C-alpha cells in the first residue's frame, strides 16, 4: 500500500496520522512517519494463536475431561404474587418471551387477601430454572419465587367426559381411581379426579376404553411439606397477618 494520501499535500493530517493520534493519545505524527499497518497488512485469523478452551451453550467452560452438559428436568415453581390486574399476563409474557419450556400454570388465592399463588411446572435445565426464578423476581408484583422441593405435595384436578354406553363400568373405574361422578346424562358421564400427574395419566388410560369425549385438566398445583415454606421466605399468614419474605 502507498503512503500517499489524498490529504497529505497541504491537508492538516492524513487519516493514518489522525488514527495514530487517536490510538496513542499523543499529537499527530508527521506524514510518512507512521509505519503502522493498514488493515490489509495486518495478520489474518489463521496467522494468530487461538485458545483451546470452549464454552457450552449455557456459557459454562467445558471441562476437557468431563463435559458438563445439563439435562433438562421437570420442576415445580411456586410464586407468591400481588393480585393486581395484569400479573398473570406479566408472568406468562415473560415465560413465552424468554422461551422457557412450560408445561402448566395455575393461579389461585392464598390465605392473605391480595396475594395469589402461581404454580408453574417447567421442563428446563438447572441454569434455565435459575433464570426463570431470577427473571420472575424482577417483576414488580412478584413477592417471592422459588422451586418447590422435590418431595412437595402436588395435585391436579381433571374433569373427564366419557360416553355413557356402560354406566356401571364407568362408575367402577371411577371408584378405582378415587374419582366421583359429577354429571350423568343419557349420552355422557362426567367424572372428576384429583391426584398427581402419574395417577391422573393412569386413570385417563383406564377410561379410554369407554370413549373419552372431552377432557379439562387444571395442571398441577403444589405445596411444600411440613414447615418448609412453599415460596422462599414465605411465612404462614392470615389475612390479618400478611405473609412476607425475609431477605
Amino acid at each position: 500500500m502507498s503512503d500517499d494520501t489524498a490529504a497529505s499535500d497541504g491537508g492538516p493530517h492524513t487519516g493514518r496520522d489522525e488514527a495514530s493520534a487517536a490510538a496513542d493519545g499523543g499529537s499527530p505524527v508527521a506524514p510518512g512517519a507512521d509505519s503502522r499497518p493498514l488493515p490489509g497488512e495486518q495478520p489474518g485469523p489463521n496467522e494468530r494463536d487461538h485458545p483451546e478452551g470452549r464454552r457450552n451453550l449455557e456459557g459454562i467452560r467445558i471441562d476437557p475431561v468431563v463435559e458438563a452438559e445439563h439435562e433438562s428436568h421437570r420442576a415445580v415453581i411456586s410464586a407468591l404474587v400481588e393480585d393486581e390486574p395484569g400479573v398473570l399476563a406479566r408472568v406468562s409474557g415473560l415465560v413465552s418471551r424468554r422461551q422457557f419450556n412450560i408445561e402448566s400454570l395455575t393461579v389461585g388465592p392464598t390465605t392473605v387477601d391480595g396475594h395469589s399463588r402461581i404454580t408453574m411446572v417447567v421442563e428446563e435445565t438447572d441454569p434455565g430454572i435459575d433464570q426463570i426464578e431470577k427473571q420472575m423476581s424482577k417483576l414488580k408484583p412478584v413477592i417471592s419465587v422459588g422451586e418447590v422441593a422435590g418431595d412437595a405435595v402436588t395435585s391436579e384436578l381433571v374433569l373427564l367426559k366419557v360416553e355413557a354406553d356402560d354406566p356401571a363400568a364407568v362408575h367402577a373405574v371411577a371408584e378405582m381411581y378415587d374419582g366421583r361422578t359429577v354429571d350423568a346424562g343419557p349420552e355422557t358421564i362426567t367424572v372428576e379426579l384429583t391426584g398427581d400427574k402419574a395417577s391422573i395419566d393412569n386413570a385417563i388410560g383406564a377410561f379410554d376404553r369407554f370413549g373419552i369425549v372431552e377432557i379439562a385438566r387444571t395442571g398441577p398445583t403444589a405445596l411444600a411439606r411440613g414447615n418448609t415454606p412453599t415460596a422462599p421466605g414465605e411465612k404462614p399468614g392470615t389475612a390479618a397477618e400478611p405473609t412476607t419474605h425475609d431477605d
Partner: protein
Amino acid sequence: MSDTAAQPRSDADESDDGSTAAATEEPTEPDEHQTAGPVSTGAESVVAALEAAGAKTAFGVQGGAIMPVYDALYDSSVRHVTMAHEQGAAHAADAYGVVAGEPGLCMATSGPGATNLVTGIADADMDSDAMLALTGQVPTEFVGNDAFQETDTVGVTRPITKHNYFASGADTVGDTVGEAFELSRAGRPGPTLVDLPKDVTQDETDRTPGPATPPAGTDPDPNADAESVEEAARAIEAAERPVCLFGGGVIKADASDEARTFARSYGIPVTTTMPGIGSFPEDDDLCLSWAGMHGTGYANLAITHTDCLIAVGTRFDDRLTGGIDTFAPEAEVIHVDIDPAEISKNVHADYPLIGDAGRVLDQLTAAVRDAPDAEAWRDRCDEWRETYPLTYATPEDEPLKPQFVVEAFDEATDDDTIVTTGVGQHQMWASQFWTYTEPRTWVSSHGLGTMGYGVPAAVGARVAADTMGEEDRDVVCFDGDGSFLMTIQELSVAVREELDITIAVLNNEYIGMVRQWQDAFYEGRHMASDYTWMPEFDKLAEAFGALGLRVDDYDEVAPAVEEALDYDGPAVVDFHVDPAENVLPMVPSGGANGKFAAAEDQL
C-alpha cells in the same frame, strides 16, 4: 436485599393517608425531593409529582387524551420541548437522561401517540436507560371498547418496560407517577410508563402526592457479599492474563472514577463494551478500547486470551461475545452486576458479585492485596495494539473516507463533547475513530440498534447540557444518510429551540452496513440497500432553517467542520464519503472474537 424488601407490598400502603410505608426508610441518595404543592385535579397531581421528583424537562407531542396533563404543565416549572414525532420524544428523553444522569421524561397521547413511543421505549429498555413515559388513554369507561385512539398501551409496552402502570384514580395518580419515576432509576435502570385515562387526569382531587419512592424491594443492596469479594480478589491476585471489561453499567452507576482507580491500582488492561465507551479513557496506556463485532483487534484478542475476565455492568450481548463457545474460553469470569438475572444468563460467572458497580469496584480495590503478575501480559496486549491498529487507507483515487471526517471533528472539539449517532456504519466509525475519555459523552443506540436515534438524541443531549449549565459543550451527531432521513423532522425542533448542535451526515448513498453484509455474505446482491434517492441534505437543512453545508473532498473537511461548529444553532454537513468503505475489523456474527477479520479478504 435492603430492608425495604421486608415491607409488605400491597397497594393500600401507598394510597391510604398520604404517607407511604417506605417514607420512613433512610434515604440512599441526596434528598432532592420537594414536597408537592396543592392540587385540584389528577393532571395537576401528575405534574406536582414530577416537579417534586426533580423532573426538569419533558419531551412530547400533544394530543386528545393527554391534553389535561399538558394543560397542567402550562404553569409548571417543568420545561416541555415539543417534538415533531413521538419517537423523537422518546429518543430525546432517553439521551437527555444519559447526559444528565437522571430519568428522561417523554409524553404522548393515546393510540398512535403511544405506539409511536414504542421504539424509543424499547431502545431505552435494551440499553437500561432510566426514562418515564406518560401516555394519555381514553376515559376508563371506554377502555376495552376500541374507542377512538385507543390502544392497549400497558399491554403493548409490558415486555419493553421495567414496569408499567394503568392509573386507577385521581387521588393516587400522582403517587403512581412519582413511584414510576423513581423506579426507572432504582437498581438497574430502565423505562417505566404510566397510562393516564383522561377521566383520571380530569377528575378533581385535593390529594397532594406523597414523596416519590420506588416500590419496596426494587432498590437493591449496593454492596456485594463480602466473602464473595474476597474470593474474587484471590482470583485476581492469581491471574496471569487479567483484563477488565467495563460495560454501560459502570457509566450508569457513575463508577468511572472507581473503575479507573481499580484498573490502574493493579495494572490490569481495560476493554469496554460499546455502551461502556467513556468509562475508561481511551488514551490511557492500559486501555484497549472496546471489544465486540467491530471492536479493536487488540481488545478482542485480550478478551479471548484472558484467564481472568473482570466484567462490570455488562450483560454479555451477542455483539460483544460473538459465539459463546469461543468467548473468553479460558477465563475465570468475575461478573459484577446490580441485576442478579444477568449473572450466568449468557456467560457463566465463576465469581458473581451482585451490587452497584462503584461500590463493588471499591470493595475489590480494597480486597486485592497484591497486583497480579501481569507484566508479560501487558506487553502482549501492547504488541497486539501495534499489530492491529485502527487504520484506514486514503488513496488519492478514492473518495473521501468517513473515518477522516470523524477524526477531524474529534480534533476540532474538546474532550467533553457529546457524540450522538444513528445506527450503522457511521455509528461504528464514530465509536472507533473518536477518542473518548469521559463518561456520558457517547450517546448511541446499542442493544436495539435504532436507525434514526441520532438527531432526536442530539436534541435531548443539547437540552440536557444546557439545563446543567454546560452550554459550552459541543454536541455532534454523526448520522448516516439512511438514519438521518428516518428522523430528520426533529431538525425543525432544533431550529425552533435554537439548539447548538452539529449533524455530520456520513453520506455513502447506501444503507451501508447492509451493503457491507451483502458484499460479504450475499454475493454483492444489493437488494434494497442502494440509497441514491436521498435528497440534498444541505439544501434540506437550509429549508428547515439550519445551516447546510456539503463536502466532497478532503480539503473541504476542516473548513466545513470549523464553520459548522462555530455556527450558533443547528448545522448539517452532508459529507459525501466513499460508498465502498467497509467497517473493519469485523467478527462475523457468531464467530470467534480472536478470529476477527482485519481486512475484507479475511472474512
